[in-house]
């Protein structure tokens, strides 16, 4: 019996046993599957929100400290 090879690319979503996984690259340049992260654009559409402006961020968060982390 011939083996059927399914071709997947980065960003593809697959379902395995009822669970969804996204094809994502690793830091090493390999590929792996992980639970998908819904992009903010899609969440904006779902939640009825839109990006705030840099001025609005500065107004609300300009006094908040930064650190060296992320």
């Amino acid at each position, binding site marked *: 019996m011939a083996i059927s090879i399914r071709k997947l690319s980065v960003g593809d979503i697959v379902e395995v046993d009822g669970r969804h996984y996204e094809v994502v690259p690793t830091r090493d340049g390999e590929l792996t599957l992980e639970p998908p*992260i819904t992009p*903010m654009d899609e*969440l904006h559409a779902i939640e*009825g*929100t839109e*990006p705030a402006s840099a001025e609005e961020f500065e107004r609300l968060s300009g006094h908040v400290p930064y650190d060296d982390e992320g």
Partner: protein
Amino acid sequence: MAGAGAGGLSAKVVFGLRAWDEEVGRFHPLSPPRARAQNARKLIEGGKQPLKWVNCKPDGPIPLPGCRKLYVPLGKSAPSEAPYGLVFLLVRRRDTLEWTFVAFGERHPSNSKTRNVYERAYKRINGRYPGLR
């Protein structure tokens, strides 16, 4: 939904259902990270815990403009005491501004293959992990 806590801010904190499920629901129900995230959310929504907000860096290898974060457990800062982070993005809903939850995870994962909370936030906002086209 919750007030933004300390800092004289006027935007409330919102935990969207899908983002919460993707970020916290990926951990086993009895696992420490999930318990820590749930406890932090309860405290944030309770509005009585002083919140030590820190702005995310708008530039660098993982730029997150418009974002701020809380370390978990709340009130702790050192990675050894607060190994997790919650990242929020400022968004507009009609005439109001909200800090919407975008990512939860380890700040400095011991497993080099694990994406940290900032990489997860970047991917949610930009649709891909940092450094990738």
